[in-house]
């Protein structure tokens, strides 16, 4: 195999309504588990994935807040897009620990990776 690529996974949808965030999580740990530098970025409605206080038990679904809180254990890094939070009346304080990205910081991160893979 060639030297490892750097991959940015973009999660763009709200959790639970669509499986995208959960399936994106599986992709992130799959990549990180293979020693790929994996950056998980929550943008648009995807920022809801990081919101604290999720109670999906009544839906019979796994709590994505907990799953994404554990990303660093798998060697992946979590980021949240600040303008997407602001648009939704949220702030980093409402979220699980994640690096906050402005548009400039997100642009810079994109410029450092080989692939951007989207879960929308």
């Amino acid at each position, binding site marked *: *195999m*060639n030297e*490892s*690529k750097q*991959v940015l996974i973009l999660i763009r*949808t709200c959790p639970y309504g*669509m*499986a*995208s965030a959960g*399936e994106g999580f*599986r*992709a992130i*740990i*799959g*990549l990180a*588990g*293979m020693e*790929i530098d994996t950056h998980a970025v929550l943008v648009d409605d995807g920022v809801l994935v990081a919101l604290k206080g999720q109670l999906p038990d009544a839906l019979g679904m796994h709590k994505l807040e907990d799953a994404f809180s554990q990303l660093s254990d798998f060697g992946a890094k979590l980021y949240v897009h600040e303008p997407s939070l602001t648009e939704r009346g949220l702030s980093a304080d409402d979220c699980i620990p994640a690096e906050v990205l402005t548009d400039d910081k997100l642009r810079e991160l994109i410029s450092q990776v*080989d*692939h*951007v*893979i*989207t*879960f*929308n």
Partner: protein
Amino acid sequence: MIIGFLLRTGPYTSQNVDTCYHLAKRFLAKGHGVRMYLYEDGVINLHKEIKSPQERNVPEMMTELAKAGAEIRACGTCARFRGIRKADIIEEAKQAGMVVFAKYANECDRFLSFGF
């Protein structure tokens, strides 16, 4: 050059599989490698029992790509969650885990994602 595709939607529901087919066909004709990882409902595109009278046949389109050199793999977990067995998918493709998805991310020069 090797071009990777992540396809997350099924046949006859979204145009995604058609877009992937038209692009992949051209990349193969230009001598590029193609790797396609079918994820979530994307695995259904490989179901060999799909019948489509008077319409384009998606698994046949996938077979055509594979015969022209595309490597096509379907997420095994996604297939199980949709009741698709190994024997249900076209012979030119296989089920494979996230290890293969990671391998594709590493070996591809370009990577396209098609979702919702």
